[in-house]
């Protein structure tokens, strides 16, 4: 057994009367992208909080490798309008380096033009990337993103997952992504863990999408999605046309 960055063993979480997680085993290996998937209310965020050490499970244990540096991008981050905070000020809360380092981290996520913008003035998708930049500044060995694509359109979601995959390739960090849409994450993920309170199935994305448990959970929606699926294998120019070389099929 290789040394995992984080390993959960037999984790159960109960909030009041409700059993949120039941006997979950999972591990995140160095450098891999693991997608955590499941329907609404399946306990995905709870499992992430357990893995991050924010929540102590009633049963089971969580083992983290020593001195593990984690970068965290929480699901929704809202900054009070009464708090005057620029993007740079927000980044400085996580890691105190210099303006150049902030600019470089923002450039990695394509947001360097926002360094002086007030955080309340930028869009949800932009802020999500700024939070990702704050996580990257910590030089994490493990990056945890809780539904990073929420409120981002489908094209933007693909872009985001491509960016995350690229970051992993460049930095060699492990990534845990929470999602409820396997199709979009599929190309960018190494392994999938499908949960619905308990572990339904796990494995490589193709295997999971063919798994009966997965089909039972996502089946109907899956087909619906397939009807509207739009394989974007080309790029549009700014005018909406397809420039020469933008379409691999021609």
């Amino acid at each position, binding site marked *: 057994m290789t040394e995992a960055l984080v390993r959960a063993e037999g984790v159960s979480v109960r909030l009041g009367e409700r059993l949120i997680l039941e006997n979950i085993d999972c591990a995140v290996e160095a450098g891999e992208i693991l997608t955590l998937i499941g329907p609404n209310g399946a306990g995905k965020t709870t499992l992430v*909080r357990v893995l*991050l*050490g*924010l929540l102590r499970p009633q049963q089971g244990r969580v083992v983290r490798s020593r001195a593990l540096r*984690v970068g*965290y991008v*929480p699901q929704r*981050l809202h*900054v*009070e*309008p*009464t*708090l*005057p*905070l*620029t993007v740079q*000020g*927000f980044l400085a*809360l*996580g890691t*105190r380096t210099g303006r150049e380092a902030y600019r470089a981290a923002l450039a990695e996520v394509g947001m360097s033009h926002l360094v002086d913008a*007030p*955080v*309340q*003035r930028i869009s949800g998708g932009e802020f999500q990337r700024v*939070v990702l930049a704050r996580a990257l500044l*910590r030089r994490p060995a493990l990056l945890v993103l809780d539904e990073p694509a929420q409120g981002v359109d489908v094209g933007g979601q693909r872009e985001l997952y491509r960016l995350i995959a690229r970051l992993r390739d460049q930095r060699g960090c492990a990534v845990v992504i929470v999602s409820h849409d396997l199709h979009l994450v599929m190309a960018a993920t190494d392994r999938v863990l499908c949960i619905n309170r308990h572990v339904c199935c796990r494995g490589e994305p193709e295997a999971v999408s063919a798994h009966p448990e997965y089909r039972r959970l996502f089946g109907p929606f899956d087909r619906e999605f397939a009807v509207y699926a739009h394989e974007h294998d080309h790029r549009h120019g700014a005018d909406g046309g397809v420039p020469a070389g933008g379409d691999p099929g021609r």
Partner: protein
Amino acid sequence: MIGLDEPFVWRALAAGLGVAVVAAPLGCFVVWRRMAYFGDTLSHAALLGVALGVLLDVRPMLGVLLAALVTGVVLVGLQRFGEFAIDTVLGILAHATLALGVVVLSFVESVRVDLFAYLFGDVLAVTGADLLWIGLGGAVVLAALTAIWRPLLAVTVHTDLARVEGVPVTAVRLAFVLLLAIVVAVAMRIVGILLITSLLVIPPATARRLARTPLQMAVLAAGLAAVAVMGGLLASLAWDTPAGPSMVVAAAALFALVLAVAPARA
């Protein structure tokens, strides 16, 4: 108008400035963390502390510090109480402790207690010893706030994110409540129990539109609070109005002025 050569006027000014300049930066966090009602509860519980101080025959300020501290620490872990939301719990605690304070004080007949002075402050009666306490408390609060500034701000923006990044969240929160308790204890003499929250909330709210960073807002709030203290004191001397409430009125007037003049930002 009473002459400015009277020493008590200068003592009042020093006390007012000392408290205002400390309360305003701390108050920024009260505003950012939406804790105005929390501050109100701490200060209302202060009257019970006054009664405690009278009964135990120690400085009222110490009794207040103790009462505010206990209330704050109890409340900090309390998100809900049974089926009641936190603002309901705060509302009950604030007024129950205030009323209980008045009732307990009425039993202490051996000591004449000027209730009005505790409720609305008595800044013109500040003594040299009071000034010493205000200076001491203020210095401690400013130094501690400077020390916990960044972690406290990180916790204010997002608690879980701060915790993952290694901030000792519970310790920082407790430290903040401790500082609030100290400010309540020293501010009571100036504006009184019922008006302490105004020093915590009005100057920061006034500074919001003029600031681009948290630090700017804190410094501006302190400056605006100082202006309000001086204006209120002058008005009180000119028209013989109660000094503490006059300072609060001045702060509110400044707020209205900035609201009217400065454009809204983000």
